[in-house]
């Protein structure tokens, strides 16, 4: 019995390792790269842990003025797109859940699934015509395509699980539709709003395609900035990996800290009371 338990645990551990390793290994390799000097990068056999750590890769990233600018750009774009998505998406999710407007939910889903490139070019022309290129507005607006559907879908799941009786009780207690939403439904869905916020931040922060098309030199967000560190003549892997790590870090911390809520949020509505 005991041997069997140990074998079971070992088997599980191996399976978990196999499943997780593709994601984990390249992270570890990126970390290793960011801490190595250029000379160690090309070494054969490869070196995982270098003898001397190249901290200057990290300090170098911050020393370049534009990196802080791009960081700030990312914060503005992601922040605005998320806040606006919450303002629009939470009431929208409530409305769709309560009116059982599943068709409009599907329409929103389609908007989310449409490949970005199919509308990026016309929008690029539109923004050019409006004279918005060179500002952060085009990116903020287009990130809504990502953030609004996420918020709406997470909130639909949450509002569908709040018992109807609570709202009926409030209706009898004398609340108007708006009061029911603001004083009963929304406070109860607070965990859902947190999840929607986190997911929206993650997806918006990581977005690359929109930035590469719409951003100019001054309005780059971080993923685009990192990409621009690749040049044709030479790739300096150390600084690149360090920059990539710094870009990933906020999202990584957010995901690790809130993973429980994120899983709960993504499965909300799947199980009653879940």
């Amino acid at each position, binding site marked *: 019995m005991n041997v069997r338990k140990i074998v079971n645990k070992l088997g599980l551990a191996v399976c978990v390792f196999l499943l997780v390793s593709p994601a984990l290994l390249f992270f570890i390799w990126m970390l290793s790269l960011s801490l190595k000097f250029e000379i160690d990068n090309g070494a054969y056999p490869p070196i995982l842990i270098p003898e001397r750590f190249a901290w200057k890769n990290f300090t170098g990233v911050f020393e370049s003025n534009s990196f802080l600018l791009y960081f700030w750009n990312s914060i503005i774009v992601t922040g605005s797109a998320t806040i606006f998505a919450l303002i629009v998406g939470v009431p929208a999710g409530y409305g769709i859940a309560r009116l059982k407007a599943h068709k409009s939910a599907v329409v929103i889903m389609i908007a989310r699934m449409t490949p970005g490139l199919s509308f990026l070019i016309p929008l690029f022309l539109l923004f050019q015509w409006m004279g918005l290129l060179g500002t952060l507005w085009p990116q903020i607006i287009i990130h809504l395509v990502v953030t609004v559907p996420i918020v709406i879908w997470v909130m639909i799941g949450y509002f569908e699980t709040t*018992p109807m*009786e609570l709202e*009926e009780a409030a209706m*009898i207690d004398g609340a108007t539709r708006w009061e029911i939403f603001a004083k009963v439904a929304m*406070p109860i869905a607070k965990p859902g709003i947190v999840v929607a916020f986190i997911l929206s931040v993650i997806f918006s922060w990581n977005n690359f395609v929109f930035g590469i098309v719409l951003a100019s030199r001054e309005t780059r967000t971080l993923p685009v900035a990192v990409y621009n560190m690749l040049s044709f003549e030479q790739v300096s892997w150390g600084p690149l990996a360090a920059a990539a790590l710094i870009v990933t870090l906020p999202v990584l911390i957010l995901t690790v800290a809130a993973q429980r809520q994120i899983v709960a949020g993504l499965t909300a509505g799947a199980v009653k009371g879940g």
Partner: protein
Amino acid sequence: MASVSIKNVRKSYGPLEIIKGVSIDIQDGEFVILVGPSGCGKSTLLRMIAGLEEISNGEIAIGDRVVNEVLPKERDIAMVFQNYALYPHMTIAENMGFSLKLKKADKGEILSKVTRAAEILGLGPLLERFPRQLSGGQRQRVAMGRAIVRDPKVFLFDEPLSNLDAKLRVQMRTEIKEMHQRLKTTTVYVTHDQIEAMTMADKIVVMHDGIIEQMGAPLDLYDKPANMFVAGFIGSPSMNFIKGKIAAEGFAAEAGGILPLGGNVPAASVGRPAVYGVRPEHIQIGDEGVPHEVVVIEPTGSETQMILRPVGQTTPQKGGLTCLLRERISAKPGEIVKIAPNPAMIHLFDHEDGRRL
């Protein structure tokens, strides 16, 4: 306080009619219980009184005012839900005072009304807690407190006790009845539990398939059920029905044997097929009567329930009989006993439409 009048109310969802023309007059201060099996439309009717469901046809009036088109919040009613529907993010005091807060009542008034309701229900020490920190019975009381605080014209209860365990249910039953005796607010109460209905109501409305089968005082329904449905629904354990024919010397059961009729059968109906109804508590075991075989004996201490079947039958369903006795019984399963229904307490029903004869 107010009367409630329901006139020929109908409710349909598309072609499906849930309530098929129901009229009830509820007096000021009366405790009326809508009872029936699930799906009979009783909850829908209650929700129509509350304004949570639209009325497809007919008229509902609270006091002198027809409320068909009036919003729930303007009907001056309070409702207690089956799952209590307490706001999870508010304390007990906030839950109870929510309606007053929405009316923009001043804080002192809210506090005094909430405190008074909490005193009535013994919730004083719990006012600062959240619903999740309360037991089922306490939550039930908070839901009632929320209703009391509003001082409404009508209380509506939607199966308020069905989430509680058996012991608590009996206790809360007493509390609700006591509360009604104290406040004398008109009350409409929905339940599927006929014991709740019998013990609490001034008037019971038995519903089935969207119509009213019978309406009246609890004991009237028990003594004179209008049809087999009411006869079987009211009373626990439920009434025994025996198929057979009316004969000159009594009732000739299909399974054999002559059961007493009490002599008030008109001669014209002799030979007519009918259903003989007798409650388990109105059957005596003695030296005289129709022989039955004992199948199961269930003693509870205060009384003994026996399941019997006519001698010669093998399936308990066919002609099976329940019998409830005050005294303790020494009979064993398989033994033969003789049963004698009390002729003053028997009921006769039409064998086709189930109406009382």
